[in-house]
């Protein structure tokens, strides 16, 4: 089969657009890990719930899916607060095994509830944007993907602004750096944990909501994307936004280019392979390479 440079360009544009949403979906995981040092396995479940909530808002209330994603953000922020108060609070200081298993359990519960409500079949959101295209660099680009890209970037920017320019955000970052030192200077560490967890949860649901406008989804929808998120944050060195962005770009480019050489159904295997390769070659992520170069 022969590919033209036009094909290549199309794939590259698609890769850039995908990288935006990948970064948004991984940043929540990265925030929670950075601040609390726990792996939020319930992320996958929340992502899926975000998608289905958008679906319901779209189907029953005929709401614009992008407007719905804002409601999803707020709603899952509150859910994150509740989850933290009820469950996560108890395992923050326990050995990692507890938080891993607890949140794994939460994920299983969320997934099963979704199966009970929505069944096991695939759903999708067909809005007025779904089949619309615009021309970028002379290439037809789906409007949905374009909007999702910009919304993701704006959301990431806002979260980043919150973390760097507000008191609460800076308290969260201080907690991430050293929780004992943060406590010493009077930061309410418990509150930082709570907000960080809720923020991470909300970002996951928000990303799920945006993903639902592009892909079809079922109750197992979060798993694949969770694995991709892990690859991304490991590539990015687990804790920083620039790292996450770089990781997202790398994963999305490799995935997009891989369709020239392998079956699309093998993409999940690819995300995992990248994860393992990244662990071997770049244990501190791409950002670590940068630091190694400077140090």
């Amino acid at each position: 089969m022969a590919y033209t440079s036009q094909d290549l360009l199309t794939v590259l544009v698609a890769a850039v657009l995908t990288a935006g949403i990948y970064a948004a979906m991984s940043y929540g995981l990265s925030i929670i890990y950075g601040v609390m040092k726990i792996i939020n396995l319930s992320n996958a479940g929340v992502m899926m719930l975000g998608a289905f909530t958008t679906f319901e808002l779209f189907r029953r209330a005929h709401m614009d899916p992008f407007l719905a994603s804002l409601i999803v953000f707020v709603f899952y922020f509150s859910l994150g607060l509740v989850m933290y108060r009820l469950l996560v609070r108890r395992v923050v200081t326990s050995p990692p095994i507890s938080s891993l298993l607890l949140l794994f359990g939460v994920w299983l519960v969320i997934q099963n509830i979704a199966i009970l409500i929505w069944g096991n079949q695939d759903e999708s959101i067909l809005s007025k944007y779904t089949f619309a295209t615009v021309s970028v660099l002379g290439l037809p680009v789906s409007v949905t993907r374009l909007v999702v890209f910009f919304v993701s970037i704006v959301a990431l920017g806002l979260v980043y602004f919150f973390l760097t320019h507000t008191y609460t955000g800076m308290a969260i970052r201080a907690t991430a750096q050293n929780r004992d030192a943060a406590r010493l200077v009077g930061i309410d560490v418990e509150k930082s944990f709570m907000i960080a967890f809720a923020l991470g949860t909300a970002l996951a649901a928000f990303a799920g909501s945006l993903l639902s406008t592009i892909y079809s989804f079922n109750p197992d929808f979060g798993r694949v994307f969770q694995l991709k998120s892990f690859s991304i944050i490991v590539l990015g060195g687990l804790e920083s936004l620039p790292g996450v962005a770089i990781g997202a770009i790398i994963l999305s480019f490799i995935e997009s280019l891989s369709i020239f050489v392998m079956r699309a159904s093998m993409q999940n295997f690819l995300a995992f392979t990248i994860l393992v390769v990244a662990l071997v070659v770049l244990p501190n992520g791409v950002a670590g390479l940068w630091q190694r170069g400077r140090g």
Partner: protein
Amino acid sequence: MRKYWPFMLLFAMVVLPLFLGLAPNLDLGFFSYYYFLNLGFITFVFVAQAVAWNILGGYGGQISFGYSAFFGLGAYTTAVLWGMYHWPMVLTFPVAGLVGVIFAIIIGLPTFRLTGPYFSIATLGIGEAMRVLMLNINSLGGASGMNLPTTIPGKMWFYYAGLILVSGTLAVSAWVRQSKFGLALFALNMDQNAAASLGVNVALYKNLAHMLGAFIVGMSGGLYATYFQYIHPDQVFGFQASISLVLMPVIGGVGTLWGPVLGGTIYYFLEDTLLSSLPSLHLLVYGVLLVLIIVLEPNGLLGMAARVQRWWRARQKEHTVAFPDAGKGALP
């Protein structure tokens, strides 16, 4: 007396089928001969896996969500060697275990060097990645799975094979607990940096424990494949297989010798009797169970039993202190 009960249990497990075999067609409803052999075999395989998982996951505190990869690789190794190359069946099991070990090294070497949760993260994808890979390898059946030869020994053979596997695994686990190797695992579980600074080669011991677990789970995968004579990527590499491996030790008591045995037995019993009638609530039940165990009693059923025992002893003591003359003939 107390010390010998594992051997008495083993003796009972050896003798029971012989005893039931005297009247193989006697149907006691729940407890017929063939049902017992089948239940026994599957429980043994599950328990052996749980005990194997517990060596790294319980003693060493390194949670793996990816043991289904070893299970599936073992199953496929046996399927290929026995089904395609006509090896003697029994010889394929150790090879199945070794394939698991090789894969364990591939996963363990990069991830165990690092502190932090990298290992658990990587294992989350292992099973899924292998499943996707196997679904796409058409020479190994791909998405239609693989049929194995049907010339297998009887159920009795499998029962005893399972029993040997599980007893061997328990013996290994018991040995690890009291060895220097086990001590190193316990130490790195408590504080990895402290253990490393005292000269424990953390990465080495984690890898060894991982390889040991992989070997046992790989063998059990081979045994499982021959028993059911058919394997499919969704089944042997499925998420379900990995979840059950985590759940069994957690239910019984992570990091104890007998916890996984108790958990595995209960788990399979739950799976077989209760949940087969409620397939849509599988994950919910498991998830709620996990959450409750972690929040209420992280040491599982054995932890709960210990707590009850302590409470009971304290109560007894309270009684003797409060009523020093109790039972000394207060009544005429």
